[in-house]
């Protein structure tokens, strides 16, 4: 019995080490290739967005895969993280000239604000289950986006001014600066994101999520997912654990938002980047990578973000190809036929067969 436990533990540890290893290896290979100067500008420009999407996918996997709640408002938390941190960086640009420290603080602020919103949204929302939860989180994501779109915030010698109407009605002094300009968002955020920070944040995200999953708390969360009544009957505090998972997931999405906001010099809440389109895209990463499978989320996020860019030479047809690839992957990974096919021609089995035949000889 004891031996079995150790064996099981070793297996998860091994698997986790592989996950960390993939990320670190990816970083090292990219870094070497960049030093060698063989990486195209396109790919170099994509590195930080890739990190952003990986973090988003892993964090959503915590809600969808581990906690078993279908959330469609993940982009809303990303939006909160992005705007709060971009606002901070913009204000502190002169006060803290060292970009490293400023960015570190921005990350903490983005994570904290997103977590706060996670709690605020989570308390009423997590009472719902299934489709209802999905609909309400979808609505919350849209509400966050639309609220951000009507915020005007300016700064002058008298302090901060806020308006929900337009920049004019803030009554700024002539030398005052409009920081959040409603639908035009925040422009001129310092470009503090880089690949190294992105990778470190991915590793931290992985560390948090993997350790949570393999802890007592994680087992409680999964117990709630698998059978709510049984979990309740053994004394697991349902609301507490659900809220915990939801908040951590939101906070990590906020971190991804910080990375996003400090990669581009313009930040506006459009349906493209913070609307439900984005939420669903993150969900697609999670579903295609395998619900509950952290490593799968990473790979799916990377492949699906790269795909439209790599298909650029097909011009407008690339969207079509993207859809076909999605469908093909779905069939291959999830349909009964696809699973049977994989079973028959899986690499492990083929190797196993060869061994067997060898042994027979």
């Amino acid at each position, binding site marked *: 019995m004891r031996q079995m436990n150790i064996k099981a533990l070793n297996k998860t540890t091994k698997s986790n080490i592989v996950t960390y290893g993939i990320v670190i290896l990816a970083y090292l290979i990219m870094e070497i290739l960049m030093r060698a100067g063989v990486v195209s500008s396109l790919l170099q420009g994509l590195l930080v967005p890739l990190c952003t999407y990986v973090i988003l996918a892993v964090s959503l996997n915590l809600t969808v895969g581990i906690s078993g709640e279908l959330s469609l408002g993940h982009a809303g938390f990303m939006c909160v993280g992005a705007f709060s941190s971009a606002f901070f960086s913009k204000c502190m640009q002169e006060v803290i000239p060292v970009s490293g420290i400023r960015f570190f603080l921005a990350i903490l602020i983005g994570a904290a604000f997103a977590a706060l919103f996670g709690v605020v949204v989570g308390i009423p929302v997590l009472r719902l289950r299934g489709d209802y939860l999905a609909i309400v989180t979808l609505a919350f994501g849209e509400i966050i986006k639309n609220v951000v779109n009507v915020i005007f915030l300016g700064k002058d010698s008298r302090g901060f001014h806020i308006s929900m109407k337009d920049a*004019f009605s803030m009554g700024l002094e002539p030398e005052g600066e409009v920081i959040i300009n409603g639908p035009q968002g925040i422009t001129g955020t310092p470009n503090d994101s880089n690949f190294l920070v992105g990778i470190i944040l991915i590793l931290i995200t992985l560390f948090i999520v993997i350790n949570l999953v393999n802890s007592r708390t994680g087992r409680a969360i999964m117990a709630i997912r698998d059978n709510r009544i049984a979990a309740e009957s053994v004394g697991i505090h349902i609301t507490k654990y659900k809220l915990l998972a939801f908040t951590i997931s939101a906070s990590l999405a906020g971190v991804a938002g910080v990375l996003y906001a400090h990669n581009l010099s313009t930040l506006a809440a459009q349906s493209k980047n913070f609307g439900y389109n984005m939420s669903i895209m993150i969900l697609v990463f999670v579903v295609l990578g395998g619900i509950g499978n952290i490593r799968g989320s990473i790979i799916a996020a990377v492949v699906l973000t790269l795909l439209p860019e790599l298909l650029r030479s097909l011009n407008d047809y690339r969207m079509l190809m993207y859809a076909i690839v999605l469908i093909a992957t779905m069939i291959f990974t999830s349909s009964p036929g696809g699973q049977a096919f994989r079973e028959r021609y899986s690499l492990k089995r083929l190797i196993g067969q060869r061994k067997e035949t060898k042994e027979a000889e």
Partner: protein
Amino acid sequence: MKKALSLLLVCAMTFSLAACGSKESGTTTPAEDNSQTEADAQPEGDAQPEGETEAPAASDGAVFKIGGIGPTTGGAAVYGIAVQRGAQIAVDEINAAGGINGVQIEFNFQDDEHDPEKSVNAYNTLKDWGMQVLVGTVTSNPCIAVVEKTHEDNMFQLTPSGTAVKCVQYDNAFRMCFSDPNQGLESAKYIGENGLATKVAVIYDNSDPYSQGIYDAFRAEAANQNIEIVAETSFNSDNKTDFSTAVQSAKSAGAELLYMPFYYTEASLVLAECSKQSYKPVFFGVDGMDGILSVENFDVTLAEDLMYMAPFVANSDDEQVKSFVTKYQESFNEIPNQFAADAYDCVYVVKAAMEEAGVTADMDASAICDAMVGAMTAISYDGITGKQISWEANGEPNKAPLVVQIKNGETIGL
């Protein structure tokens, strides 16, 4: 059965991925597949079978590579496609006439889906292709993101239609169109100086930086022009089909003029609503109004007497405009809008600046940029969106604002 289907689809996927690495899409350029070369450097993308890393394309020095960025898919596609087509006509004309200083132009237009992040990707793709000058981007927010990158790389950028102030905040960037504040200012001046009205109602789109930017400047100038804004109503991109309350409030406030700083699709609805409520103020729009006469199922008599600021009038008698419109109609079977016209002019301005600066095709983008930035402020250009256009060092064009009015279903210059 399912097995066979999935196998087929997987084959299709593998084939498509492999094809994208090597095959040419056959648009306008012979050497654009460079952008895919290092795709396989991504270690986690092991699902992609595409392979061989190609050597960077040797620049044969025989062409100028001009890149373009704009949305050709998604909600703003109509603007991006117009720019792509307008620029393509100019490029074809210049190439047919012997190119720039005898050197041909290659033009490569990349889609950005009106998304800043995708726009930067498109820019990087073009950089890998070997772009020397950028004509773009089409929309404002992506433009602000891209100008940051062109500034870093010292790449010459001329945007046909990026109207936000920050689009040209750096020395290397210029624009062809009026900026948002400029339009708001000019329209307030025009209304004030011509005594069109003193009581003005405004409807604007507060989710669109273009509309908001124009209105902010209009309001600031209105006070100087003795214009009183008696009603203002905003709408947003999620809620732009019902204008009954907006028109009602303008009517009850007794406004003599309705200022409409937004695009023609919504304007056609506003005009229809006004007619329904039998409200007949003076209608005044901005350059986004261009195209209102071609809205499907729109009664053009409703737009009678509508005035708007327009840099380009498609049925003008000007020879250059006539030739452009004819060519555009022959090729694409539609009347060009102002975006197409701006893009057409952009390519010619790039030509003029290149000739003035005396750049050669073997210079790198940074050297070309340095030379062209100096030349931009020296040239004076006659085009289809204005005559004797010159540029300030801050990137803004000096051109006369043109106000047009619709009479008997035709636009005429005032």
